[in-house]
């Protein structure tokens, strides 16, 4: 039995995609948990999906980070429950203080919706252990505010602790400016906490999790979670 919970905020729009991908890979029903609830059921991992929670009012993810359910998500994450935040979910993780930094308006000011290449720079996290070290994956992005920013000291600390999980790269895995779709510092597309159990990323792995969708590079993020759950139980 693998128990995954998907948090649903008003304005989430990738919640059902994430549910489909999770259930296809785990083989078990995922629970949909409404933002107004005060408790997440006991879960092997929690997913904060993409979308426009609370209409992106004030700042992307700011209102969702203070919703009733997030108090319990934060408490459970701090107690060790793995959490992945995808796109708006990443913004919520930052606003909730579970990961450092902020996601600003894309440097181009444009909403960018296309496949990008990302390199897996840390395949030891709960959600990336099925990728090879430095593997290049093709995963779609779809966001207006994915420009990762934090101070230089925090950037150095993230790199020093191997917490940069994904970086935008070209097809050969080179980290270049043209491969950076949104102006993120050091081409950062995803980061983790110190334990590797909390991961935030802008790309949408659920959008390329089976060949019918045009690719499967996102699938291993869900498979990684399954492997992690099984390993933890062993």
């Amino acid at each position, binding site marked *: 039995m693998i128990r995954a919970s998907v948090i649903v905020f008003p304005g989430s729009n990738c919640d059902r995609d994430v549910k489909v991908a999770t259930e296809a890979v785990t083989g078990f029903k995922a629970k949909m948990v409404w933002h107004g609830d005060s408790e997440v059921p006991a879960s092997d991992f929690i997913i904060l999906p993409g979308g426009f929670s609370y209409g992106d009012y004030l*700042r992307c993810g700011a209102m969702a980070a203070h919703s009733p359910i997030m108090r319990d998500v934060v408490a459970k994450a701090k107690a060790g429950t793995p959490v992945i935040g995808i796109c708006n979910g990443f913004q919520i993780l930052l*606003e909730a203080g579970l990961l450092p930094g*902020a996601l600003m308006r894309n440097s181009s000011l444009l909403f960018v919706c296309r496949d990008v290449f990302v390199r897996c720079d840390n395949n030891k996290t709960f959600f990336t252990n099925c990728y090879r070290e430095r593997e290049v994956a093709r995963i779609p992005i779809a966001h207006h505010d994915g420009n990762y920013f934090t101070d230089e000291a925090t950037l150095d600390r993230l790199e020093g602790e191997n917490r940069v999980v994904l970086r935008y790269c070209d097809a050969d895995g080179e980290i270049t400016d043209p491969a950076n779709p949104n*102006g993120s510092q050091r081409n950062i597309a995803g980061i983790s906490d110190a334990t590797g159990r909390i991961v935030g990323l802008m790309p949408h792995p659920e959008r390329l999790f089976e060949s019918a969708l045009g690719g499967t590079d996102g699938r291993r993020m869900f498979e990684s979670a399954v492997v992690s759950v099984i390993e933890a139980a062993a």
Partner: protein
Amino acid sequence: MKALIKITLKNGVLDPQGKAIENALGALGFVGVSGVRQGKLIELDLAAKDEASARDEVERMCQNLLANTVIENYSFELMG
């Protein structure tokens, strides 16, 4: 008591929207405009009776929700 809260991007944080506004002003013929930065102005009424408690309350509002102190500075004035 009324509070006027001003939220701006920190120095050193790139402001692509400010840059776009600057370019648009130039295109409209306003010459010599530089350093455009955009932000937010939030106005609210408080039940607090004295200035010290109002100041404390607004400070906590800014820290907890209104500003993202990773990228933004805030300042405010109280009136009434």
